[in-house]
């Protein structure tokens, strides 16, 4: 009797006891699918998080001001970030590994044009912004140093604004638009870089706008630079470069009560990883218990099966089956049973993750390594918990087995 024949024999014996087999496999199904689902959710969430953190600018890292003193004379103290100037940022740019330092500010304005009204974000930029962000110019020109120096009342609109607020055949460059009841001149149109999920939000549906940051500061009474992003030459050294740039900026601004720090994105990921590792371990240990209980269930059923089939075993021995052949038959049966449980568990996990992908804000990612481990592990359970019943079957004396009532 070759392996394939033993296997088909095992399958038919499992098939003959459908309900019992399914119930026996339940522990294995739950254990295997739980691990696959949990790991898939974790991988999906992690991927989403990494995308969110790094997608907009893979090699950009924000610098922000963190106060080091919180109290003065027993009272809570709020430290105003120091005013950062363009010259200081130019000095930070000289730090090794730094490619660009982007100082921006922003505000929200109401734009009126052609009977259309839209609230939109206006980003105050300098002349480097366009190159550093690698924006695509569609029409007109970029903002330049002179625009900033002379507080020019000019704006660049993005492709979304062009589409939504202008007629297709209308000349956008040179048009005068109205923002917060003041006129501004459009000098250029650029390709929008808003991610798709933002475009669905009402406040971004009509795009964004760029203006000289000096102008924004004047319009909104805000600092000329309130957001600082460092772009590294090498994305790999992003965090180190960010730290060096932050140190330099702290030195330049000379604040006593606070310092500039770079946001360490990899720390978020690491934190998430360790948090998720805890959950994975927890679920895995529950799954492990489920598999153990499943394995004991398999052993129990196999023992019952051996007892039920005592006569069959006796007969097979009388017909010439050796101990090894009987042992193999029962072992293959229990391995088939648990592997089938593992396969059903994988199928179930695939189904659940497919449903979860529709419900969750991210898609769970099934890890093929976990799937393979799931199959191997469930087969192993079949061997470990099948060996005892199989051994018992093989040791039956044919004559006693045949006489068994």
């Amino acid at each position, binding site marked *: 009797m070759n392996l394939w024949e033993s296997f088909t024999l095992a399958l038919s014996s499992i098939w003959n006891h459908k309900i019992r087999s399914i119930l026996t496999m339940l522990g294995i199904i739950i254990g295997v699918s739980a691990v696959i689902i949990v790991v898939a959710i974790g991988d999906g969430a992690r991927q989403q998080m990494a995308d969110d953190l790094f997608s907009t600018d893979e090699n950009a890292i924000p610098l922000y001001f963190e106060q080091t003193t919180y109290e003065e004379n027993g009272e809570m103290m709020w430290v105003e970030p120091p005013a950062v100037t363009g010259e200081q940022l130019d000095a930070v740019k000289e730090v090794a590994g730094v490619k660009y330092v982007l100082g921006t500010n922003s505000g929200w304005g109401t734009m009126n044009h052609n009977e259309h009204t839209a609230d939109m974000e206006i980003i105050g930029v300098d002349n480097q912004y366009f190159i550093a962000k690698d924006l695509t110019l569609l029409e007109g020109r970029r903002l330049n140093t002179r625009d900033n120096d002379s507080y020019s009342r000019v704006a660049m609109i993005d492709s979304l604004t062009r589409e939504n607020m202008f007629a297709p055949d209308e000349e956008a460059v040179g048009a005068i638009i109205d923002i917060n009841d003041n006129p501004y001149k459009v000098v250029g149109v650029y390709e929008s870089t808003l991610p798709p999920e933002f475009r669905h939000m009402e406040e971004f549906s009509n795009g964004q706008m760029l203006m000289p940051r000096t102008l924004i500061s004047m319009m909104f009474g805000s600092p000329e630079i309130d957001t600082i992003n460092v772009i590294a030459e090498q994305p790999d050294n992003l965090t180190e470069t960010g730290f060096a740039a932050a140190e330099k900026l702290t030195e330049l601004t000379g604040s006593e009560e606070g310092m500039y720090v770079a946001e360490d994105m990899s720390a978020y990921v690491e934190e998430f990883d360790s948090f998720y590792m805890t959950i994975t371990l927890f679920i895995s240990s529950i799954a492990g218990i489920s598999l153990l209980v499943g394995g004991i269930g398999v052993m129990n059923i196999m023992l019952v099966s051996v007892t039920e089939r005592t006569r069959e075993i006796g007969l097979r*021995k009388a*017909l010439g089956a050796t101990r090894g052949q009987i042992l193999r038959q029962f072992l293959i049966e229990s391995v088939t049973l648990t592997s089938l449980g593992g396969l059903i568990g994988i199928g179930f996990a695939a189904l659940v993750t497919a449903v979860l992908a529709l419900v969750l804000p991210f898609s769970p990612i099934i890890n093929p390594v976990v799937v393979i481990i799931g199959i191997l592990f469930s087969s192993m359970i079949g061997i470990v918990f099948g060996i005892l019943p199989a051994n018992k079957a093989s040791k039956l004396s044919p004559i006693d087995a045949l006489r068994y009532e």
Partner: protein
Amino acid sequence: MIRLSQLTKTYGSGSLAVPVLRGIDLEIGDGEFVAIMGPSGSGKSTLMNIIGFLDKQTGGTYSLNGEDVKQANEKQLAGLRNKHIGFVFQQFFLLPRLNAQKNVETPLLYAGISKKERTARALGLLNKVGLKDRTGHLPSELSGGQKQRVAIARALVNQPTVILADEPTGALDSKTGAQIMDLLTELNREGKTVIIVTHEEEIAAYTDRIIVLRDGLIVEDRKVTS
């Protein structure tokens, strides 16, 4: 050639020891047709089981074709059963979930015969025992006589030299029993050694030699004259 000398079988040990066979001397030549008779509990089945390698003797020797089988280990015994012996049981002992053909094929699985040859041999034998049109039937769809025919086909499929039938007609009515005996007689004519256990004189009358056991000893061994 089956040769038993001073063969004993004792169940249990010490004060609980039950001697079942107490010194059997017996020779059965190739191609003989033998009936073993005797009262219930006299040790007939025990003797058959030892001859069929299902059980081991406690003392004495058993040699098959001149070879002492005392030294045979578990695996060799399985091989001897598979190669030399075809069993027919009173309760048929067919595997209930397998059809007639698959039941007949079972010993061939353990002999490592290819699927093609298994099918050919099983169908050939089912044809021989008159069940040509029942090959796909499950045991539950067969009459007692048909079941026993399947069992006989199964006993023959490995081309054994010896057919052991412990009360093969015990669960059948006399007419069906007679048909089974006709079949066994035919097999004997073709050269098989056939040994049956029976309680019935009419059944024993089909054979050429009757051995009577009582309390674990052979008390009579005679030729049948027809």
